[in-house]
């Protein structure tokens, strides 16, 4: 759980922003009980950029939703800034970005960004000022009065990032935010997320199924196993910042990509040993259920 100076915005001395201890998550569906997460322990320090990566259905999104108190753990505890996750949600400690931009069709770009500010009850003047600086941050100032349908997918996702950051949350939760975008847009937005992260100093927890994306962005990559999701390995990414398009062509970048890939594969290798029969039988039974 160490952090490196290449990996964090702030000193490693700060208390953890996220503390997950002994978390299991079981879904009760009509088709039976599905164990989505098992024995999760994870601490994330302030200013870290942590990616959760794993095969689909490994529970990485569920883990993110546990941090955001959008679902509750079956056993174990989730603490955010030293508080229960529920209290952190009510205190608006985090901002969230989903895979879809989830913008309101009836609101302009600026009104969409202002939404959490309105919900919190900020004055008109405060809202306008925050919205302006957020749109500057995501470089969409010229589009304040546009409606979402007038923007491209990448621009819509940047609006949703601006909205998530509007209340200056201590954590930004991102659930496969660029999964629906083309590769070129994704790479450009990755650079932009890095810049925003460095500029704001916020802690980011980022769910992805793209290895290059995870390596490029993260200070640590948390590799998860297929259902039930367990943390297989945590890999420190020591690439210097700011990472650029050139970083994507360095040998170290490829080494780290290989390391993450092997960690992802490793779990399946373990599965050939003792007890694998039961594990894979469980997995087969759970197939098709919530992930």
């Amino acid at each position, binding site marked *: 759980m160490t952090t490196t100076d290449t990996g964090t915005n702030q000193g490693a001395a700060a208390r953890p922003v996220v503390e997950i201890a002994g978390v299991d998550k079981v879904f009760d569906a009509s088709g039976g009980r599905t164990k989505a997460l098992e024995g999760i322990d994870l601490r994330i320090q302030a200013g870290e950029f942590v990616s959760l990566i794993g095969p689909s259905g490994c529970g990485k999104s569920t883990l993110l939703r546990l941090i955001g108190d959008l679902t509750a753990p079956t056993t174990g505890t989730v603490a955010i800034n030293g508080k229960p996750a529920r209290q952190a949600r009510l205190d608006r400690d985090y901002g969230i970005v989903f895979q879809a931009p*989830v913008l309101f069709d009836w609101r302009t770009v600026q009104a969409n960004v202002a939404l959490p500010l309105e919900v919190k009850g900020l004055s008109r003047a405060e809202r306008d000022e925050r919205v302006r600086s957020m749109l500057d941050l995501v470089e969409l100032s010229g589009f304040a009065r546009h409606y979402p349908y007038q923007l491209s997918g990448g621009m819509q996702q940047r609006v949703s990032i601006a909205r998530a950051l509007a209340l200056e949350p201590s954590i930004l939760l991102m659930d496969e935010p660029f999964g629906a975008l083309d590769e070129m847009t994704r790479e450009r937005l990755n650079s932009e997320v890095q810049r925003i992260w460095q500029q704001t100093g916020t802690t980011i927890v980022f769910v992805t199924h793209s290895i290059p994306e995870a390596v490029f962005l993260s200070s640590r990559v948390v590799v998860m196993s297929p259902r039930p999701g367990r943390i297989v390995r945590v890999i420190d990414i020591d690439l210097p910042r700011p990472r650029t398009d050139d970083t994507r062509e360095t040998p170290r970048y490829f080494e780290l990509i290989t390391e993450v890939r092997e960690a992802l594969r490793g779990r399946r290798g373990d599965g050939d040993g003792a007890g694998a029969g039961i594990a894979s039988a469980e997995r087969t039974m759970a197939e098709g259920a919530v992930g």
Partner: protein
Amino acid sequence: MTAATAGFTPRERGSMLTRIGRQVRGQAPAIAVFFTVLIGWEAFVAMANLQQFILPRPSAIATALADDWTILSTAAGNTLYEALGGLAIGVTAGVLTAFAVSRWARLRDAVLPIAIGASAVPIIAAAPIMSNWFGILNPFAKMAIVILLTYFPMLISVSRGLTQVDPATLELMEASAASEWQVLRKVRIPNALPYFFTALKVCTTLSLIGAVVAEYFGGSTEVLGRVIVQSSSRLRFDITWAAIAIAAISGIVMYLVALVVERLVIPWHASQRSREP
């Protein structure tokens, strides 16, 4: 970034008048067809030498409209009073009930299946019963039919609009620690507006059908329904047609008013976006 700054400009708005002007020009083909049909109709009746009680010429209908204007306009006023009064009450009641059933799931499960069933019933058949309850000369007997006709579609549509909200939107509000009231005001109501207007347009038409047909079953004579029944029994089909024309124009005007309000209130909705050339 650079790619982002290229491209879109906000949708051209223009003044209300230029927009209406553009709208009228857009409808030119429909207007042309309308007048062509009228002229063809006039010519056909003359050439086929049809009796006026089979099919009066448009010009004869126009004459009847002018000659009997006092009776027709009074009748139209009374019928519109029933239709609009019933529409207002039915729509208001439907919307209020929709808010209640969307708030309490158990109420929804109890009420909505019945509402869907009720909206499939030919409610107009209950007109004699309403006359019996409220008095045959009481305009409320006709209004009650209009209320029943418009209430259920409005209730069903608006409760769908209030409840069929993108789950991710609700999660977003939850993540912002929004209150139930804020979710209602900022998510559910805007989401329900397109549903409301779709139902409103249907209800304007239903309200006029309900009022006119309910009048067929008796009551005050100074209403469009009675004018239609009585003029046709005297074989004065020119007056019948004139009354139908007034009912038609009223219906179209009511529909257009609903359409214009819809455009003003939900310009952001997909159905309202100007199509690209």
